């Protein structure tokens, strides 16, 4: 291999796309390191504080596509205060200054200011794709800047962000000669949209494949948009409410029928059940259906729709579908790989929407099932054992019993055996979320069998430090561990400090860990940042070492303490 000119090696490396593989390539020898370094275009940074913008740029000067993740996962559930961190601006500033040819930016749980969006839009002439997932801190003014200045924009994908809406003029900021859009998703925006601008934009975007509208886009606009974009592959409706006996409804029916490329359907943020029959024609080719925002649909309408969806691979639905409805899914959707059942009424004890029965039915009917997110009223060991037998291919298994310490209602036992069966049977399991009454035993099983596990989420579980130790010792590929309200303390935390260098991060909140132990860990492991989030009045100096910390977040890093931590975050 030494006799190949660099260009040849570079060409070979082009075929190596996975981040892990490229990282391995760069370790082979100096010459490979150098070639890989200059040819690397896509970089994934799972924790924005593990490295600095400057070092990133120095390491990969040819950077074109960057993925950045900010806040810890539990921030999604209000466990991380605002202003914790994860700011985009320093990254944009550094890349702009170094004239990085950025083309793609994908962010998750970052704080994105309008200022950063503006700077981005003006600094990267080849910028093509912006994907923001669960971000916050920006307004529609920032979007206006992106629309106006990114001449080659292909993708603007806003997923579940908190956006301050200054009303609809941002869409009008796309210049008339912008015809490059392939993906436009603004479903999470709450405010009004300039409908005429939207129609013109869609009309002049012949490559548009994916369009997801927000609630402000009414039924008749949808019909006109579909007429302009029959080539759509992915559609998210806005408001889907109309009189099913009207002319407008018939027009929509006709428009949908001309869209025979649609494979993915979502939206229905407001929905009139009797209008759903218009979408039946596209159902037979759908591979992804997301009705998790369609609170207006009852089980009967959902099942009617699903009966047409024989090719469905991914289904996101509300639990009002019920166990019987899941039975229909099981008998219809034989290609199903991913199922997510969300709670429609998370705080209501009485509404027994889905139980273990629905899950068992799906596991029996859908042998290809490999990814599950299931919010339910109850679960039994017997059901989990059956599911484990039926589906051995789970990669993601996230179970959320709404009462977090509920035992098996039939036997009154903890759910250790059920989850044990899952990890024993699903040898490829990478992500697991537990709930229900659980003892240390479940962690014994996890440590023993979940050898491919990368991410584990634990809440209200376990009896002692042993539980956490089983996991830390047994799960060799563990990258992210997040724990809340478990009786794990200092002994577990400090037993194997080197383990955390092999992981991306550890979150522990409302556990038994003391400040003293955190300080010890921070002192012994300079390659880790140990952060305490303290929202009470006490300062670092008032809190004694033996007192328990409320929230601890630690992560490996090559750049030491971050400089942007707010007052309530203590960097030990």
């Amino acid at each position: 291999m030494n006799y190949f000119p660099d260009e040849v090696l570079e060409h070979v490396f082009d075929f190596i796309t996975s981040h892990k593989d490229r990282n391995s390539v760069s370790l082979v020898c100096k010459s490979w390191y150098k070639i890989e370094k200059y040819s690397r275009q896509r970089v994934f940074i799972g924790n924005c504080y593990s490295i600095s913008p400057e070092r990133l740029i120095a390491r990969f000067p040819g950077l074109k596509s960057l993925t950045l993740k900010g806040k810890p996962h539990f921030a999604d559930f209000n466990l991380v205060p605002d202003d914790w961190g994860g700011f985009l601006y320093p990254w944009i500033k550094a890349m702009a200054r170094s004239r990085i040819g950025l083309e793609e930016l994908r962010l998750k749980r970052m704080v994105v200011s309008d200022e950063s969006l503006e700077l981005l839009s003006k600094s990267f002439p080849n910028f093509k794709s912006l994907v923001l997932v669960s971000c916050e801190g920006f307004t529609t003014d920032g979007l206006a800047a992106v629309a106006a200045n990114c001449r080659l924009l292909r993708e603007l994908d806003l997923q579940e962000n908190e956006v301050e809406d200054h009303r609809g003029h941002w869409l009008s900021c796309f210049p008339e000669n912008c015809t490059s859009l392939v993906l436009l998703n603004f479903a999470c925006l709450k405010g009004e949209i300039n409908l005429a601008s939207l129609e013109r934009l869609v009309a002049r975007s012949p490559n548009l494949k994916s369009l997801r509208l927000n609630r402000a886009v009414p039924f008749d606009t949808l019909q006109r948009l579909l007429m302009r974009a029959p080539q759509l592959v992915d559609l998210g409706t806005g408001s889907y409410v109309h009189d099913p006996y009207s002319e407008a409804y018939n027009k929509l029916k006709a428009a949908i029928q001309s869209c025979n490329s649609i494979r993915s359907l979502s939206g229905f943020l407001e929905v009139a059940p009797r209008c759903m029959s218009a979408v039946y024609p596209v159902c037979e080719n759908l591979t992804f259906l997301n009705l998790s925002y369609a609170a207006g649909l009852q089980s009967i309408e959902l099942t009617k729709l699903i009966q047409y969806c024989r090719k469905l691979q991914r289904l996101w639905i509300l639990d009002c579908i019920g166990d019987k409805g899941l039975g229909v899914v099981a008998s219809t959707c034989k290609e199903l790989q991913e199922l997510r059942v969300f709670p429609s009424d998370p705080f209501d004890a009485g509404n027994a929407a889905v139980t273990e029965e629905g899950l068992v039915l799906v596991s029996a009917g859908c042998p290809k099932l490999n990814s599950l997110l299931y919010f339910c009223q109850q679960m039994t060991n017997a059901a989990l054992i059956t599911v484990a037998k039926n589906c051995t291919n789970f990669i993601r298994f996230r179970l959320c019993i709404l009462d977090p310490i509920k035992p098996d209602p039939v036997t009154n036992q903890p759910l250790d055996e059920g989850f044990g069966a899952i990890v024993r049977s699903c040898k490829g399991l990478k992500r697991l979320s537990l709930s229900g009454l659980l003892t240390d035993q479940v962690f014994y099983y996890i440590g023993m069998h979940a050898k491919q596990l990368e991410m584990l989420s634990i809440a209200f579980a376990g009896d002692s430090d042993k539980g956490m130790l089983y996991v830390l010792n047994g799960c060799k590929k563990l990258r992210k561990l997040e724990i809340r309200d478990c009786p794990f303390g200092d002994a577990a935390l400090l037993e194997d400090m080197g383990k955390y260098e092999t992981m991306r991060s550890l979150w522990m909140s409302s556990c038994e860990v003391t400040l003293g132990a955190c300080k010890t860990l921070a002192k012994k492991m300079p390659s880790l940042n140990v952060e305490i989030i303290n929202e009470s009045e006490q300062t670092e100096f008032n809190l004694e070492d033996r007192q328990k910390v409320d929230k601890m977040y630690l992560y490996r890093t090559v750049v030491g303490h971050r400089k942007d931590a707010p007052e309530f975050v203590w960097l030990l």
Partner: protein
Amino acid sequence: MSSENGKLLPETDAGGLNFEATELTLGLPGESRVTSDGVAKLGSKRGFSETVDLSLGDNKNTNKFGQSQIDVPEAAKSPVSKAQVVGWPPVRGYAKRRTKSCKYVKVAVDGAPYLRKVDLEMYNTYQQLLTSLEDMFSCFTIRNYLSDKKLDQVNGIEYVPTYEDKDGDWMLVGDVPWQMFVESCKRLRLMKSSEAVGLAAPRTPPKCSSAS
């Protein structure tokens, strides 16, 4: 939600009327007035420190169980009531997944200089609504008081939650299933109980659970 905490009040004292039972408080009709540890419950006024956290966003002021300074892991082991835990269930954006539009109604409290508005669609049960109203009005209500009264003891001045329905009639909050109430409620009024003399004591709760 609260059924496991409720205890039956003694029907009568020896030979006398149980005034406590007839005292009108801010609470669901027929609901027990004390929690299992004897602390006066939702109906009688409490301070912010006892606010149930509705996980609706801001987690700065309340800690997990809405109790101040409690040792959290111990609390974690007791039966957990869903509405009381920050960040549980772990579902992002659940508020957006709930019923479609918002329904803002005016809330007037006797004695308050200005009205407020609440979005009824943000709540699933009477309990959540009443808690939220308590939060909203506890400030000035307490200021009406002599300063040596404790925050959580608001004896004497109680409020009766009433609402104006589609027919223009003033009704007692809590009689009908929650969803029916949301649909028919046009505005809310927290009436001073001294004005509510003559109203029948709250009836037994409706058969279905609080959010039907």
